């Protein structure tokens, strides 16, 4: 095994906190159960790491195996990274292609390797139709730098992709790859809570309004599942506005400061279901609906 690979594996394992180590190693599935059992995880961390690296050497771990371990570590610690979101837009009249994961991975790798000689590309699929792509960049003359990889998480059933570091010159290349694979599933059935009411004894008086709300919600959020987002934060720094004259707050020179934080296991789906559920009026405030378009979820609102 290459010395650089050994060093890379060692440094990756050192990053993993002890309480997560066994879980991550099991998810990696490179070392067998038997091999893991030979390790005493109660020792000092350095000894455990040394033992693990030695086992990997015995099994001749490759750079790809090491890259996979790095992906798993990052998946466990994804909240420690800042992600940029890219949204692919469709040209009018483009056909909807069905998405083939295998084909996508093959051509992704080929395109990158053709363009840049030295690059390591690794993939890991997850349950939510998402594929994690790890790219380690090198140049024509240097081997890929495994310590500064870029991550791209692509949700194949949506037009969204998340990236983990400023891409600079490599962005157009990745953009091109996604263009050739831009696809969404055929329009899914609208299931925003408008159950088809089979019982004719139940009459919805506001059916027109219900349909209007459905329409607006669909226009704002689209038919596809929303990207998974857990927080949105709004910092307000505005002066008090009121119809009443001469209130103490209105005379205040300093702007009022306020922080509003929304959190949810799936914030955008929750916002999408607000109007159909009758909890909020449609259309929703543009401050909420602009999150996918502006690709940001931290806002500062000031007086103009």
């Amino acid at each position, binding site marked *: 095994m290459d010395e650089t690979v050994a060093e890379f594996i060692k440094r990756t394992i050192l990053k993993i906190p002890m309480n997560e180590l066994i879980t991550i190693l099991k998810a990696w599935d490179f070392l067998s159960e038997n091999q893991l059992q030979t390790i005493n995880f109660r020792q000092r961390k350095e000894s455990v790491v040394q033992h693990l690296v030695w086992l990997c050497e015995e099994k001749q771990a490759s750079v790809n195996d090491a890259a996979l371990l790095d992906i798993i570590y990052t998946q466990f610690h994804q909240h420690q990274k800042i992600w940029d979101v890219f949204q692919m837009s469709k040209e009018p009249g483009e056909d909807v292609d069905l998405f083939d994961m295998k084909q996508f991975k093959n051509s992704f790798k080929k395109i990158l390797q053709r363009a840049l000689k030295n690059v390591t590309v690794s993939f890991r699929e997850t349950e939510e139709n998402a594929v994690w792509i790890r790219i380690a960049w090198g140049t024509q003359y240097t081997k890929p730098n495994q310590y500064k990889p870029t991550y791209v998480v692509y949700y194949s059933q949506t037009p969204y992709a998340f990236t983990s570091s400023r891409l600079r010159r490599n962005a157009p290349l990745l953009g091109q790859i996604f263009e050739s694979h831009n696809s969404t599933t055929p329009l899914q059935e609208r299931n925003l809570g408008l*159950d088809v009411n089979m019982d004719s004894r139940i009459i*919805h008086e506001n059916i027109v309004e219900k349909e209007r709300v459905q329409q607006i919600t669909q226009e704002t959020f689209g038919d596809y599942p929303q990207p998974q987002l857990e927080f949105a934060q709004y910092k307000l720094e505005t002066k008090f506005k009121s119809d009443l004259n001469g209130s103490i707050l209105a005379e205040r020179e300093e702007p009022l400061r306020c922080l509003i934080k929304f959190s949810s296991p799936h914030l955008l789906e929750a916002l999408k279901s607000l109007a159909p559920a009758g909890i909020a009026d449609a259309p929703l405030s543009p401050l909420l609906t602009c999150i996918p378009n502006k690709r940001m979820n931290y806002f500062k609102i000031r007086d103009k």
Partner: protein
Amino acid sequence: MSVLRPLDKLPSLNTATILLVGIEDALLQQLADSMLKEDCASELKVHLAKSLPLPSSVNRPRIDLIVFVINLHSKYSLQNTEESLRHVDASFFLGKVCFLATGAGRESHCSIHRHTVVKLAHTYQSPLLYCDLEVEAFRATMAQRLVRMLQVCAGHVPGVSALNLLSLLRSSEGPSLEDM
């Protein structure tokens, strides 16, 4: 006119119509489904509306009972009810209106004080029922009760009128508001 009146239409044969008014459509739908599961000699019709006034374009039967569903978790729900009440003729409040408060079970989520809805019901001289509509068992029980009330309000129960029922329900209430 956009005001609902109880006796402006002729009744249909053996039909009893209830109008559920509330902002959360899913809850109303579930309650309607539960009501229709009940065995009932009368033909039931359930109308669901988010608010009043109702759109005038719909051809609807005479409404026998209006239930305003108020979600104690939502001030918007209370506000919606208060605004809708303006579109109900006074004669409806002779036993053909009732208030249903949901969400009392999750105290920490309640943003409307119980006293507020008690006062509202008292102002409109109408019964106030509590039921966590999200819980299936409670909903089924409430549905049974509403079906029975509806039959009385539609005049399908001989010897009992809506007004009778109203005075019966009122006397079983606790101390009056002034004593609270």
